[in-house]
């Protein structure tokens, strides 16, 4: 299983010399397995544009899993060039709602906000709500669960034959009762349990979090506490604050590493790939 970070930033894209190490594009992660024709993509932030521009022609099927529909997680949809490949099948999964996913996405992908409509794409596009039943995605089995974040948001667990990844990019588990002690009462604990790689919101310094309680994001140290609680082997801090330059992310990561009680801690870097399993 190969996990590639195409966008690691939270809230809004922050390109510039101060973010070249950890990246300025918003949430987008690709997971590839043994099948060269299949790809799982987690979220469609601005990082999706570059992913699309380098997508191998051999890819025939994509499962694109949206954690939620806040703008920083869907902005790349309008710039995903493979949407105009007729031989490509793309299934977009999103949190369930009484409003059809086409209508929800079309609030962005339609004039006056955007000139192209979803109905104009020429790839084979399927829109699905991610329900409680596991999703069979090629060699991967994917589970979705609601997690604490304003509006409905999902975390995903992607299980391959040789590794398991959990993706909770926008998550505030600290609102769980007596966090971080009650695993059964902690948001996201089930889907993140015992994973090889946990990609988790680590937006704030602890002192910044105090002014952002209820905003749906985590301090890096709460992210570590969550990772330790669920026994994740490696934590990739994700959804970097747009106000944090590379030095700030590095410093925040050092503090998170010092707070760990077993989980290996790193900061997700745009353009980097992690290989898991065999």
């Amino acid at each position: 299983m190969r996990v590639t970070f195409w966008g690691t930033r939270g809230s809004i894209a922050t390109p510039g010399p101060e973010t070249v190490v950890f990246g300025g594009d918003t949430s987008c992660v690709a997971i590839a397995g043994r099948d060269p024709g299949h790809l799982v993509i987690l979220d469609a932030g601005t990082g999706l544009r570059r992913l699309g521009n380098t997508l191998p022609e051999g890819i025939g099927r994509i499962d694109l899993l949206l954690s939620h529909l806040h703008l920083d997680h869907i902005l790349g949809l309008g710039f995903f060039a493979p949407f105009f490949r007729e031989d490509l099948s793309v299934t977009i999964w999103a949190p369930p709602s009484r409003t059809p996913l086409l209508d929800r996405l079309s609030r962005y992908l339609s004039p006056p906000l955007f000139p192209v409509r979803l109905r104009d794409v020429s790839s084979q596009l399927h829109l699905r709500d991610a329900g409680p039943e596991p999703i069979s995605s090629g060699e991967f089995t994917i589970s979705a669960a609601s997690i604490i974040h304003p509006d409905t948001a999902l975390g995903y667990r992607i299980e391959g034959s040789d590794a398991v990844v959990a993706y909770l990019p926008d998550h505030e588990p600290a609102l769980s009762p007596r966090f971080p002690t009650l695993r059964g009462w902690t948001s996201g604990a089930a889907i993140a349990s015992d994973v090889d790689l946990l990609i988790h919101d680590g937006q704030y310094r602890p002192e910044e979090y105090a002014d952002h309680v209820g905003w749906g994001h985590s301090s890096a140290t709460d992210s570590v506490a969550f990772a330790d609680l669920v026994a994740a082997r490696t934590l990739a801090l994700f959804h970097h604050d747009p106000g944090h330059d590379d030095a700030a992310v590095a410093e925040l990561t050092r503090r998170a590493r010092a707070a760990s009680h077993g989980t290996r801690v790193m900061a997700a870097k745009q353009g980097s790939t992690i290989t898991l399993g065999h």
Partner: protein
Amino acid sequence: MAQQPVELILVRHLASRLAVPVFVIDASGDLVYFNEPAEQALGRRFEETPPMGHDEWTAAFLPSRSGRPLDAEQTPLMIALRQAMPYHTSLDVLTGDDVWRSVEVTAFPIIAPGDRLLGAVAMFWEAHGA
């Protein structure tokens, strides 16, 4: 222990911040949480209370109406759960100081997206005169 649904987690979080007694049951009717004001009313701590099915917690708290004890299915929590509808009533309950008190109770079901009935929550207010 399996993880509770995030909606129940958030209800518990809210209840832990409120000044009135709040009780939370899950979809099977088991009591999964009561807050500190409820602890004071009951005279027992949640953390020291073993998990209880709905018949057990009803017996433990002895709610009654007009002097007649309620069975489990007549409690506001269970009515809200069974009917998936809000419910309000007046009750007498035996509090931890061994005093019968008249209370107003509002219970409502916790229904998550996908029409998943996850449990019910009840809030209590002490009645002050007629």
